[in-house]
């Protein structure tokens, strides 16, 4: 875990309100696995006191680079979208534990992402595909918000769904999963809480790992901003430190969304 200025290699639109930013710096060497995230300082001076968490979508120890994909939502992501190549941004990371996948081989694996939940699944899919058969179901709002379909297709049998049917299947990722024939041995999901809860319920007999979001303060486990009720000794987990990836039977999301 480091705090470091990373240089912006590129920062470009890849879908509606969605940017891909490539960053370079030694901090990359500390990334252990897909699903970890970085916490980015926003703006000049002290007008934005909270950093913004973004998943590491891809990384390479050889090039010393990592990729984030972010949607412009509010002030922080808007500021990010205006930063130009060759400038620097201050990054705290890598944070969290990411997806543990060492135990998986020769399995039918399902990867499910919704919107800006898709990014962390990309590096994951790349790595999973080395030893497993991977299916990816990616959900987006509509055709203009679709990104990375081809990239996923290289490593996984990929289905895209859009809420309004303007591209791929019409409906939610859960609708696509409903229609799937193959048996799933293990699943991975990242997306809005409501999607995660629905999938957790839908695949409750299957083992899986969920990547969960919550508003964060410190990002390192010190402030207790990002706790989530859990089935463990303490009764809770800290998403930034213990997660953001949890085993599907550790955190119960569909209760908290009802």
């Amino acid at each position, binding site marked *: 875990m480091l705090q470091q200025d990373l240089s912006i290699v590129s920062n470009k639109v890849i879908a509606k309100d969605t940017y891909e930013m490539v960053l370079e710096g030694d901090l990359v060497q500390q990334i252990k696995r897909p699903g970890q995230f970085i916490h980015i300082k926003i703006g000049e001076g002290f007008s934005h*006191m909270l*950093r913004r968490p973004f998943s590491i979508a891809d990384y390479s120890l050889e090039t010393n680079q990592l990729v984030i994909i972010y949607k412009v939502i509010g002030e922080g992501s808007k500021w990010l979208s205006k930063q130009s190549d060759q400038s620097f941004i201050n990054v705290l990371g890598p944070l969290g534990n990411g997806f543990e996948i060492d135990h998986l081989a020769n399995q039918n694996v399902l990867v499910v992402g919704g919107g800006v939940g898709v990014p962390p699944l990309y590096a994951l899919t790349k790595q999973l595909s080395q030893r497993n058969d991977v299916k990816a179901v990616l959900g987006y709002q509509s055709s203009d918000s679709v990104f990375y379909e081809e990239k996923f297709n290289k490593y996984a049998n990929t289905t895209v769904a859009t809420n309004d049917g303007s591209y791929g299947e019409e409906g939610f990722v859960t609708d696509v999963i409903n229609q799937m024939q193959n048996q799933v041995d293990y699943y991975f999901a990242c997306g809005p809480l409501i999607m995660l809860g629905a999938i957790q319920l839908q695949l409750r007999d299957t083992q899986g790992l969920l990547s969960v979001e919550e508003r964060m303060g410190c990002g390192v486990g010190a402030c207790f901003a990002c706790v*989530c009720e859990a089935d463990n000794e303490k009764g809770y987990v800290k998403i930034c430190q213990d997660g953001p990836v949890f085993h599907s039977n550790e955190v119960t999301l569909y209760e908290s969304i009802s």
Partner: protein
Amino acid sequence: MNLSVDLGGLQLKNPIMPASGCFGFGKEFSQFYDLSELGAVVIKAATGEQRFGNPTPRVAETPSGMLNAIGLQNPGVDKIMEQELPFLDSYDTPIFANVAGSTLEEYVQVAEKLSQHPTIKALELNISCPNVKEGGIQFGTDPNLAYELTRAVKQVSKKPLFVKLSPNVTDITELARAVEEAGADGLSMINTLTGMAIDKQTRKPLIANETGGLSGPAIKPIAIRMIHQVREQTDLPIIGMGGICTADDVIEFLLAGSNAVAVGTANFHNPLVCKEIIDELPEALKRYKFTSLDELREVAVS
């Protein structure tokens, strides 16, 4: 330059400490620098029993500040002593315990236990947490309750007692006087101001608890004013806080009448902030033509 300060009888290497609740029990930040460099460490609030705190979201950004409503989540005083203090014991810096509760009895019980623990060098009595339904802020807004609570805690603890004042009051000097009369050895100020932010998309408060405590640079002018007001009425040592981000801010707080300072929210902005401020303080003092901390304290605005 010698940065050491005497704070109510405690000798600190320098006047910089992380503020309660913004530094956990130190473990996470020890990955960034050696905690022995700190003037002191104030740990997260302890209550009698384990608390799970408020529903999430618990934090939201605001202009030059943030709201939080953690709700005093902590494993309870016994587990803190068992599981958290041993780690801190390995560092060469005094540990301040932050004491919270819902009832006078709970405060007293927690204070008594912590004050007997050898790792704890001083207590900070949190009578100003705006984010819990019971206790907390009531004790901090009613001078009589504040007096009684402070007295009761003084009776069970021999360690220096700093009472942490709430800024959500008409006249903070009244509270300061009440706890001084009750035997407080020092004051910590300020805790957060109660605030709220509304999500225009969901049309609901951004913080699940509805209101939260406002901290960060936004409240700095209020902290400076209150410290200055209280300094005019008492010689008690004051730990000043509220929006400190830089060594310049530290100087401003010392000029207002603080003896030491605590850094809260800024730790989220920059996990190295406390260490960096300590490193930069001598330069900053020179820039403003101070040859020592003592000299600064002598000219403190009065």
